[in-house]
């Protein structure tokens, strides 16, 4: 069971030497950090390595966390920097026939298939598939905005750009995601016919 203490309280306890408080902090943020890492790495193993690296880096520099922003915003900026370094190291070739399709998500399929909830599961499957086809930056902005409870200003802080630029990027990312969703669904319908 996860602790009901706030992030700041858990940080205080961790800095006081209580490692189980940090375990609670990791449990609280691991799903989102891992999802963000998946936007860059695509493979579960690499994503888990990035996510673990982020939590270790965060632990090491926890004392330098200024508390001027949310802990999540600070943590996501570590994730973004670590993931970018990972991409640079891996030298991922982003050029393909249509420019973006190299980021096809292979392992990011819904884990459980509930027969009673077929419609919502397949929607979620197609959404995940379409997100996997976006460029990492687009996928990251969309994920942070919709699932990371981050405002445009906070996303700007994570990415190191202006809030207005984030607004424009978010608009374009949503358009691209919508196109991918439509294209994938159209393809699926054709296959069924």
């Amino acid at each position, binding site marked *: 069971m996860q602790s009901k203490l706030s992030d700041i309280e858990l940080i205080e306890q961790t800095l006081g030497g209580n*490692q189980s408080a*940090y*375990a609670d902090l*990791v*449990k609280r943020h*691991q*799903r*989102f950090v*891992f*999802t963000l890492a*998946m936007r860059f790495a695509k493979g*579960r193993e690499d*994503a*888990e390595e990035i*996510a*673990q690296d982020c*939590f*270790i880096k965060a*632990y090491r520099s926890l004392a330098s966390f200024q508390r001027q922003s949310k802990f999540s915003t600070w943590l996501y900026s570590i994730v973004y920097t670590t993931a970018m370094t990972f991409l640079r190291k891996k030298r991922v070739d982003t050029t393909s026939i249509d420019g973006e399709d190299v980021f096809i998500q292979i392992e*990011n399929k*819904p*884990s459980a298939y509930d027969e009673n909830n077929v419609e*919502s599961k397949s*929607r*979620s499957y197609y*959404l*995940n598939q379409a*997100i996997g086809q976006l460029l990492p930056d687009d996928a990251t902005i*969309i*994920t942070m905005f*919709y*699932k990371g409870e981050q405002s*445009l200003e906070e996303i700007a802080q994570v990415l190191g750009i202006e809030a207005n630029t984030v*607004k424009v990027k*978010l*608009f374009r990312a*949503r*358009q691209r*995601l*919508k196109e991918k969703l439509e294209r994938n669904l159209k393809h699926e319908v054709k296959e069924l016919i």
Partner: protein
Amino acid sequence: MNSIEEKLWSYIDGSCTAEEQQAIAMLIAQDEAYMRKYHELLKLNEEFTSMELDEPSMAFTYNVLETIRTQHAQQPLKAAINKRIILGIAIFFIVTIASLVMFALSSVNWHTADTSIKIPKQLDITHVTSFFTGPVIRGFLFFDVVMGLFLLDTYLRRKSVLKHE
């Protein structure tokens, strides 16, 4: 703002000014194209919000904490020493040196006939030597040997851990 979509997304996100918000709300109410697009984007927005997060492996938290523990254990002694210990040692030496200086100054016989600066006639430190008797020296050496063995044991243990990894 440019396109209908851009205006409507700003309206849905609540990222435009109050006046813009009001103007867009009026457009949605009056213009059929705006209304249709608004409902389409609203549905899309709901879908994006219901996006599922990925789940890392069961051992994720354990692995993170284990790595932290291992790295913490491998930390060099120089970095692992508590600063309070260093401060304590510094205070001990400062106090010892200061009391030694004060003792030496108080033991000096300053009464000389000459006004010119001369080395003190008598420096009475004979009773200081009484502290350095046989048992004290032996105790000190025994403590040194124990400390040396303890450090050697720590060093060998760390070396063995590294070898196993």
